[in-house]
């Protein structure tokens, strides 16, 4: 069923990119739920999550005409939403403590949550796939604490360049600044 849903949103987004306005509301409704849930899980605050989700939806639909039908729509949309959440968090610039009522909810991860995380992970992996072998090895060594072929200053320099190139790949793939 998940594959059918993914195929459906891909087809709808492709039609919207082509100029078929009749699917606009449908695309908005299909994307709103996952986008809002993602923003909620990232920002842990309903008001901020609503703001971020609204801005994310505007950005997603503003860029709908740039959507490449060869790519999957949901990871693309959620990557934009994640970026908006990070931007909002940086802009607001305050640490949020997890409220008591949310703490209880985090224990039970819904399958929708897994679906969102999977799509985000896939978006990150696609971006990682755009990098060279050396950059990939460097990032794996950094974030998964595996042994790298180099160390010290050389590893640090490679890490900085690899992260910069990963950012560039994200911008190229998902079209946000």
């Amino acid at each position, binding site marked *: 069923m998940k594959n059918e849903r993914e195929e459906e949103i891909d087809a709808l987004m492709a039609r919207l990119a082509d100029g078929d306005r009749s699917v606009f509301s449908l695309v908005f409704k299909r994307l709103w739920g996952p986008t809002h849930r993602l923003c909620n899980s990232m920002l842990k605050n309903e008001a901020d999550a609503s703001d971020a989700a609204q801005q994310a939806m505007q950005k997603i639909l503003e860029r*709908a005409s740039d959507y490449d039908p060869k790519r999957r729509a949901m990871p693309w949309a959620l990557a934009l939403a994640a970026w908006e959440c990070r931007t909002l968090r940086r802009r607001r610039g305050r640490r949020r403590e997890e409220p008591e009522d949310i703490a209880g909810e985090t224990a039970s991860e819904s399958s929708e949550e897994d679906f969102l995380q999977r799509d985000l992970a896939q978006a990150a992996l696609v971006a990682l796939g755009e990098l060279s072998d050396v950059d990939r090895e460097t990032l794996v060594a950094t974030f998964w604490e595996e042994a790298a072929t180099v160390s010290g200053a050389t590893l640090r320099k490679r890490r900085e360049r690899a992260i910069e190139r990963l950012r560039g790949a994200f911008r190229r793939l998902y079209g946000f600044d």
Partner: protein
Amino acid sequence: MDSTDLARAEHSARLRYEWARVRRSLIGFAPILIVVGVAVAIGRHRTATVCFGLATFVAGVAMLWYGREFKRAVLPGVAAGIVPLAMALCASHVEHGCTGDGCMMLCVPACTVGGIIAGLAVANIANERGRSVWFWVSASSIALLTGAMGCTCPGYPGLVGLVLGYGAGLVPTLLRRLFARPPAS
């Protein structure tokens, strides 16, 4: 978030979507202004050329903004229209002793032959790709407007030659479609 806020968010997103399409169309079709500039610089009837050039630009932007079959017709239409435009502009600069409007020696035949080639090209593309009637109409409009920028050089006869030639170019493919045998059941 209640349904009113959601409706407002959707409306706002829709406006952003449309504005983004307009911006994309303006930028995407801006290169045609180079063609218009060249036609104005070389052509004889600058006012008419500017008018047709602006009409081409507005029509192209509108089609790209709307999307679907209209969007797909823009590039083939412009490419086809450049043929009569180029032929007419070249003909008007060849020494052939023609003066004034209605020059029948080179300019009008150039527009007519250019129109035939443009019509054949659009018909061929539309037929091979199985395009709808809206593609035919859109591509034809853009092709004729683009060609008209050059075919103002001999005045109205040039434009008439362009339209008649274009129509003649469409006829073979239209006839083929009309008399095509239905697939065996």
